[in-house]
């Protein structure tokens, strides 16, 4: 920009703030800054005046008060005597739970549906096209309401399992009961109780569970090491040693040992009184919401996957066929890895959407963050300003984390490009 032929700086005049490119940027920015600050000050001033007029203040003390309401589905201990803060955390964990489950299931469903939509099988391709179009073009709220209603109307109530000749029966060797309230599944108990690991804040995890997780992680690491070794062997000698029995053993043996060590027993749900007891109950509010989110987002992901696969040039597929690869292997070894670069960025933004859409839990009564902090807590304490601000901040942080992950992935892809 600098004009090399220009004489030494001309004397500064006020109009240069506008007409001189060197200063204009600064002028504009300062003006914008002042305008934004004035607007912000105006909004804050209004808020303060309104709060004063209502006789309210801005404080988060309500988070320390007794909540007084119950939450049916929770991941950490909570009773009506707990504080609003704890209710908020329970809600947040519920939001995370349904989001993570939904993201995993929707991705699996979306990839399968996207691949099958391109299948040669006419009937399957048509069916999946119908699935994708129907779910994409109808509001998510309707799907949540309908799926929840189907659960309520089509599944039997727990007392249908009662009696000599019950109207409904449990599935999978009498271990799982599908009712219109919840799915009762068996739970595991350790007879020789090893005690629990305290994570603080009343959250306890049985050492047995910790041991199983550690054993599994160790097995995964060992399994990868073995595969690496096998690959090296293959490169060296041309023959790949058989490793699957060792790998299988790595996963199975420690699990079996731990199982007997802790004396794990399976406790099946049995009907006691009004409800099933003994096992754990997964509430339909969660399952219906999860299913609706999965089906809805899965349709979008299927479109993304399809577009990604179509973006890989046909020559790649033909080359793979020429090499004698079967269609399945062509897809998994040649096409999908290349399509991934196109698929992943929009996929992550679908995960973001799913996380935000989980706030529609309001339609099933699933107690997520919006239902606890932004719902009952807000309503009982009347602290709408504080509760809403806090809730939006939490959602914002969640999505920033997800989009941060997307940026890291994008950066990594870009580095690998030649």
């Amino acid at each position, binding site marked *: 920009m600098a004009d090399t032929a220009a004489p030494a700086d001309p004397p500064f005049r006020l109009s240069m703030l506008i007409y001189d490119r060197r200063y204009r940027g600064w002028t504009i920015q300062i003006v914008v800054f002042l305008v934004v600050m004035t607007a912000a000050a105006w909004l804050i001033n209004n808020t303060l005046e309104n709060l004063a007029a209502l006789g309210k203040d801005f404080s988060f003390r309500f988070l320390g008060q007794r909540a007084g309401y119950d939450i049916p589905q929770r991941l950490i201990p909570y009773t009506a005597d707990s504080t609003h803060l704890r209710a908020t955390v329970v809600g947040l964990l519920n939001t995370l739970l349904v989001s993570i489950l939904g993201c995993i299931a929707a991705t699996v469903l979306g990839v399968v549906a996207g691949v099958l939509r391109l299948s040669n099988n006419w009937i399957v391709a048509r069916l999946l096209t119908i699935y994708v179009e129907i779910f994409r073009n109808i*509001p998510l709220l309707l799907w949540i309401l309908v799926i929840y209603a189907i659960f309520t109307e089509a599944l039997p109530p727990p007392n249908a399992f009662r009696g000599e000749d019950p109207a409904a029966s449990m599935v999978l060797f009498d271990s799982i009961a599908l009712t219109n309230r919840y799915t009762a599944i068996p739970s595991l108990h350790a007879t020789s109780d090893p005690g629990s690991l305290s994570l603080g804040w009343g959250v306890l995890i049985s050492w047995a569970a910790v041991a199983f997780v550690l054993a599994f992680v160790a097995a995964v690491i060992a399994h990868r090491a073995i595969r690496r070794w096998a690959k090296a062997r293959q490169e060296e000698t041309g023959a790949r040693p058989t490793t699957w029995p060792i790998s299988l053993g790595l996963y199975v043996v420690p699990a079996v040992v731990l199982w007997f060590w802790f004396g794990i027993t399976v406790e099946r749900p049995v009907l006691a009184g009004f409800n099933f007891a003994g096992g754990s109950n997964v509430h339909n509010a969660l399952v219906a919401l999860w299913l609706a989110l999965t089906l809805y987002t899965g349709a979008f992901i299927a479109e993304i996957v399809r577009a990604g696969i179509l973006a890989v040039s046909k020559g790649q597929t033909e080359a793979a066929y020429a090499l004698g690869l079967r269609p399945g292997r062509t897809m998994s070894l040649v096409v999908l890895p290349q399509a991934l670069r196109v698929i992943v960025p929009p996929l992550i933004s679908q995960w973001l959407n799913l996380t935000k859409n989980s706030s529609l839990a309001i339609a099933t009564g699933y107690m997520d963050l919006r239902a606890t902090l932004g719902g009952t807590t807000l309503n009982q304490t009347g602290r709408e300003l504080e509760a*809403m601000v806090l809730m*939006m901040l939490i959602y914002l942080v*969640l999505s920033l984390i997800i989009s941060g992950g997307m940026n890291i992935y994008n950066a990594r892809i870009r580095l690998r490009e030649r």
Partner: protein
Amino acid sequence: MSEIHAETVGYTRNTMLPPQPPPQRQSGAILWLRENLLSGPLNILLTILGIAVVWYLVSGVWPWLANSVWRADGLQECRAIITARAGEGTTGACWAVIRERWWQFTFGFYPRALYWRPVAAFGLLFVAIAPILFADERRIRRVVLGVAAVLTLLAMWAVNAPDGWLVAVAAVMVGGLVLSERRPSALLAFSGFYPVLAYWLLWGGSLWQPLMVLAGFFVGWGIYRLVGRGAPILRMVAAVLAVVAWWLWLGPLVAQTLAAALPLAIAAVTSDTFGGFLLSITIGVTAISMSLPLGIILALARRSDLPLVKMLAVTFIEFIRGVPLIALLFVASLLLNYFLPPGTSFDIILRVIIMVTLFAAAYMAEVIRGGLAALPRGQYEAADALGLDYWKAQRLIILPQALKVSIPGIVGTFIGIFKDTTLVTFVGLYDPLKSTADSVRASIAWKGTYWEPYIFTGAIFFILCFAMSRYSMYLETRLKRGDSH
């Protein structure tokens, strides 16, 4: 003879082979079946699975649909009719609820005598968007406008529109059709006037007030032209001040004077009567059209060289995109009044429209940013080489191309927003999906009707969204084809 020959030579053919039938033709049902459904074990399995799914769905739903009842005064009567017709224990759909509450699902509680006004407003919408969406496709324009005109007039006639209005709307539609054949760009003037017209038709009252709001823009432009050419910043400031002064003080005065001379008023309708699909479409269309200019500004700001401007744009966009719409709706319902000067209070529909607009603007900004990024660098350089300043370059070269590329994305955003308008149910508005259906169920005659309203609203949403998504896909392929030339 033949025996001798056979002994001496290993093999010689001595008889003609019987003729084979010609090879199977490369088409036909059997071959199609074999190739598309039964080409391998996996494929056969998939086919069987597919047929099983279809069979399961059809056999589950068909008897219910086959027993549909269209005329009844209540769910009990419906059930009685079904039992009488098909025997004890059968179930059937009771579409009578849709039949009886049809107007509530479509117009909410809008005054029945005035139904023609929303119909006219949405019919004219097609004339207004024709020069924007179907800018260089004469055939599409012709088809869309023609169909819209016929449907609008038929619908208006069906809801008993006054003859004068019927003629007026017909004249405008035909005028639009003719103009779009001759000079589509002239229709843009109608697009500019349309918001005023639509507002007036939907809410009623005096036409002068919305006209004066529109006039504000002309006043600003006039001042901009009048004030000295030498001082661009001064012109800008003067124009903005003039617009504000016009809106706040002069405009209302003029409107009152004019209204006293010539009323031009139609019956006013309050927004609490809006409901059903009328509400969804009003919110969706308003939000998307208002979010377009906002989105352009945000997208330009996000690509700006000025760090502060860029930072503000990024903050706004990421904030809005990071928060669920339902939270923003609760802000509209619970908090917006906190942020306004004490003593002001907006209509809830207006507050919802504001928040949905902001929400749409953030998504729109990202779509347009994509369009801007898709332009080849040479376009920017060419604009620079011509010596155009920033705004001229954007206005004349960059934006027209970027917006054209973004139209599929814009339509996609619109579909998303339109579907999301159902969430207004959670702040107490009568959306077609939940609140209207709930209020129908609150009446004793229709208690317990769950599936029919869901299926009905779902079908309408599907038709509208599917049509729009097909249009956007068509545009996309056309754009791609255009690129390859």
